[in-house]
């Protein structure tokens, strides 16, 4: 078409940009295969001399990768599951049920998106420290370390997501009332209506929201860092890898760090490549909130 008039210049620009985007990833992968003394030395070499797989072995052992992996998986699974469940329940109630306070609650949900996350790091941490009757605390939250020493602390501040509720509500609005009424006449309670009709009908938004939440939770760093400082047993992948990077000589262990990074980004990368249509739609929707 007429738009496509200068393909050569366009190709040049787009390919240059794509190379700039991909090269750091390639450098990460290449470095992860470099042997001792091969990285961080001059002159710079992009390709490894011998593909040394021992860095991956070392990353798994030195980082205690299986434990980090387990913590990341559990936290991510709990967060994603909870966000999907609460978004669907609240989204249905706000879209289709009549009750006093509905507008107020909907506005509350919208307003949660206005508060930036950094505002909550301090109070969330202090609330978890002073959680009553947990981690040696008394009824008034005094005396112990509270929930900061438990795995729950990793997930708790992320269990409900205002944007998720908003997104699901908009989607549920498009389900015709007649369909819901028909189910009610057939004797279905509200819970059955939700489970048998609303949940199946909202599958596309569930996949999109689930993927967005999964990627965010898997990549979360700052909060996991805070919680892991209080209790190293609940350290997640990003925190563990960063810690290794901080304490060791960059010329010797950089390949091991890179191997760990490659392993840590693989799950999201695979999921993204398989379901990118849903993820991209999610980013566009969340951009337009």
């Amino acid at each position, binding site marked *: 078409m*007429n*738009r496509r*008039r200068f*393909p050569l210049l*366009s*190709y040049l620009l*787009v390919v240059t*940009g794509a190379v700039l*985007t991909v090269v*750091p*990833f390639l*450098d*990460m992968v290449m470095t992860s295969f470099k042997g001792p003394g091969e*990285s*961080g030395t001059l002159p*710079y070499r*992009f390709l490894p001399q011998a593909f040394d797989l021992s860095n991956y072995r070392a990353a798994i052992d030195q980082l205690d990768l299986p434990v980090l992996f387990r913590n990341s998986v559990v936290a991510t699974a709990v967060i994603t599951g909870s966000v999907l*469940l*609460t978004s669907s*329940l609240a989204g249905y*109630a*706000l879209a289709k*049920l*009549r*009750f006093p306070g509905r507008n107020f609650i909907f506005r509350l949900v919208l307003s*949660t998106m*206005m*508060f*930036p*996350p*950094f*505002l*909550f790091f*301090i*109070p*969330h941490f*202090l*609330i978890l420290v002073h959680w009553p009757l947990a981690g040696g605390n008394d009824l008034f939250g*005094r005396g112990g370390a509270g929930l900061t020493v438990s795995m729950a602390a990793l997930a*708790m501040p992320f269990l*409900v997501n205002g944007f998720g509720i908003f997104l699901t509500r908009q989607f549920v609005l498009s389900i015709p009332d*007649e369909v819901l009424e*028909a189910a*009610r*006449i057939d*004797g279905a309670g*509200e819970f059955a209506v*939700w489970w048998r009709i609303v949940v199946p009908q909202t599958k596309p938004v569930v996949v999109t929201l689930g993927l967005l939440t999964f*990627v965010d939770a*898997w*990549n979360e*760093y700052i909060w996991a860092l805070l919680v892991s400082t209080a209790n190293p047993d609940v350290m997640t992948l*990003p925190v563990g890898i960063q810690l290794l990077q901080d304490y060791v000589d960059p010329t010797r262990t950089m390949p091991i760090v*890179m191997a760990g*990074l490659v392993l*840590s980004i693989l799950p999201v*990368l695979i999921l993204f490549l398989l379901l*990118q249509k849903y993820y991209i739609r999610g*980013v*566009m929707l969340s951009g337009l909130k």
Partner: protein
Amino acid sequence: MVNTLTPTTTERAHSPGSAGLAVDGRSRTRRRQVVVAYLFLAPTLLFFAVFLILPLGFALLLSMSRWAGFDLGDIDPVGLDNFTDLFADGSTFLAPILTNTLLFALGTVALALAGSVLVATCIDNLRFQGLWRTLYFLPIVTTVVAVGNVWKYMYEPGGLVNGVLNALGLGSVAFLQDPDTALPSVVVVQAWASVGSAILILTAGLKSIPESYYEAAALDGAGPVAVLWKITLPLLRPSLLFVCITQFLTGLQSFALIIVMTKGGPGDATNVAALEMYRQAFSYGNWGIASAAAFVLFVVVLAVTLMQLWIFRRKGEDA
């Protein structure tokens, strides 16, 4: 709506008589809906109470208190002292920290916007659009720890960037160690990581420009620069504005990348407001100062957010 008049069999069984049965059934259904709605909303409301409203109050209280961080009974109210301390002479909060925050956000927006406009308009001319967009999207799904570490390594004397400079016959640059280059170096990485989503939003904007405009321009013999300047950019303005403001908001709040790459150093060269808040609280235990810093940043973020809402609401009325 007609259907609500017909009570279900269970309701009929409980109804006292046949008179007023329909009305009774409907109000019963309605009452049941209220209970169910609140049951469905209970986890959400409980969460908002504990993790939204309580923390906001707590943060506000702390921002106006001095507290060592142990016994909740020891919180000592000091009014606005923390805020005056932040802006007192000799405080590093206004300069360089808040200045860095603005420079970081502005730099990121400028670079990401320039890059995404170029790439998005060019991708629109090409085949395999999906493939290109996937490539540009990779940094977005990658953890900040990976992005930060790879770039930190690439900036090292023996890393890729200096390797390329050396190959071109130029000397090495201590990107992250030199106070003059540290902030721009991190800005480049933040922009690199956010170009993908900007491209996505701009592409959506480009798709909505009617093909006929380009056909008319071609008939008039307009060159590529004129087409970009006179047609594409003006019609893309809402998307551009949107990308600008959202990226600016993200930039104001970013600090994870900085923690990973420089920890705010050298000196305070890459220190930003959110990082200062984080360090005051979790490194030095100055909960009051930290909370005050958080609120100052929040006011800046809120002002930009309200401006965004205002601009887009006005746009909506114009349309």
